[in-house]
């Protein structure tokens, strides 16, 4: 209980009387006391951290869930439409060329979807509404990226600010989608896929209304 006696005051080493037999003991007691209090602060911090997290984890989850679902559902719509066209082709014995074209488009949508999700979840700070609007805007405007825009590949999963190119319309976004090892391949972009799908519909001779529900993309 020696620290107990030392509690009310913390004497500086200079005050110690060289004849004070308790000098060493009280210095030790001070250190013990300080160490103990430091530990208490750390324990308090940990307890507070857990409590704070527990409170807001669910709220964050609900927010993220809604954002993720609302953004990705559009890619699902496109995949479902292409799947329907694929099954139509099978039913009507259409040539394998069309069938493989649709399969490729399906793969392209899958890639786009993964890319968008990666980008969404790579945001480590609280995303601003403007960031998400940019993502959606980017989807509308980006075509096949010319090679001079390929510089941003290394920044693929970091700063969202890098997506706002000087002309304000974020055409730098698609380069994040490109797997670096396939830089020579054309990167699937959403408008390109929609364009291809539209021409496919015409080729198949099915009503163009079939793409009506994709107009929101």
């Amino acid at each position, binding site marked *: 209980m020696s620290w107990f006696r030392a509690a009310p005051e913390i004497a500086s080493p200079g005050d110690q009387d060289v004849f004070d037999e308790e000098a060493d003991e009280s210095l030790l007691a001070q250190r013990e006391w300080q160490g103990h209090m430091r530990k208490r602060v750390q324990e*308090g*911090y940990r307890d*507070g*951290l857990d409590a704070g997290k527990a409170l807001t*984890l669910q709220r*964050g989850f609900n927010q993220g869930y809604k954002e*993720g679902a609302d953004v*990705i559902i559009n890619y699902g719509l496109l995949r479902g439409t292409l*799947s329907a066209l694929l099954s139509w082709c099978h039913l009507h014995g259409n040539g394998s060329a069309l069938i493989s074209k649709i399969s490729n488009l399906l793969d392209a949508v899958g890639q786009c979807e993964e890319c968008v999700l990666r980008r969404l*979840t790579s945001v480590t700070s609280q995303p601003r509404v403007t960031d998400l609007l940019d993502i959606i805007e980017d989807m509308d405007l980006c075509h096949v990226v010319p090679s001079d825009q390929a510089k941003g590949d290394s920044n693929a999963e970091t700063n969202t600010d890098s997506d706002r190119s000087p002309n304000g319309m974020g055409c730098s976004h698609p380069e994040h989608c490109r797997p670096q090892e396939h830089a020579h391949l054309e990167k699937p972009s959403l408008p390109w896929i929609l364009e291809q799908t539209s021409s496919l519909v015409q080729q198949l001779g099915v009503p163009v209304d079939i793409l009506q529900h994709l107009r929101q993309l």
Partner: protein
Amino acid sequence: MKGMRGPGESRDTAMAVEQDIFDAVVMADERFHGEGYQEGYEEGSSLGIVEGKQYGMVHGAKIGSEIGCYRGFALAWKCLLHSGTGEKDSRKMKVVEALIALLQDFPYDDPTYEKLHEDLDRIRGKFRQVCVFSLCLWGMLEGALKARLARTLGFM
């Protein structure tokens, strides 16, 4: 100032002093803990939002992807069947429209929806029905698509 204290009084005073010191120590202990707690709590609150959002996005995206796929499929087929005139087509149309209705009522972006799993199972079942029975597709589905659908529906 009191006069000379008797032995009993001395003991009481000593105990009172010890009690005061004890209280001071406990208070200091709680104070330090409390200061740490305060700081940790603020930090934890913002960390929780960020972490929760990461998890939420992944799960929300999964559901959005699946539901979107069913919806796109059903709406496209509704359009394709419209151009057909047979009786079989009208029966198929009914099933497709039933799926569309189920999807319409499903709050796909609400993770707190109490009937989430129940409704999702019903939707999956209806989709399977659309594919397998109504459209007689299953055997004709291209390998990769079939595998993908099977994985999504959790069978085969």
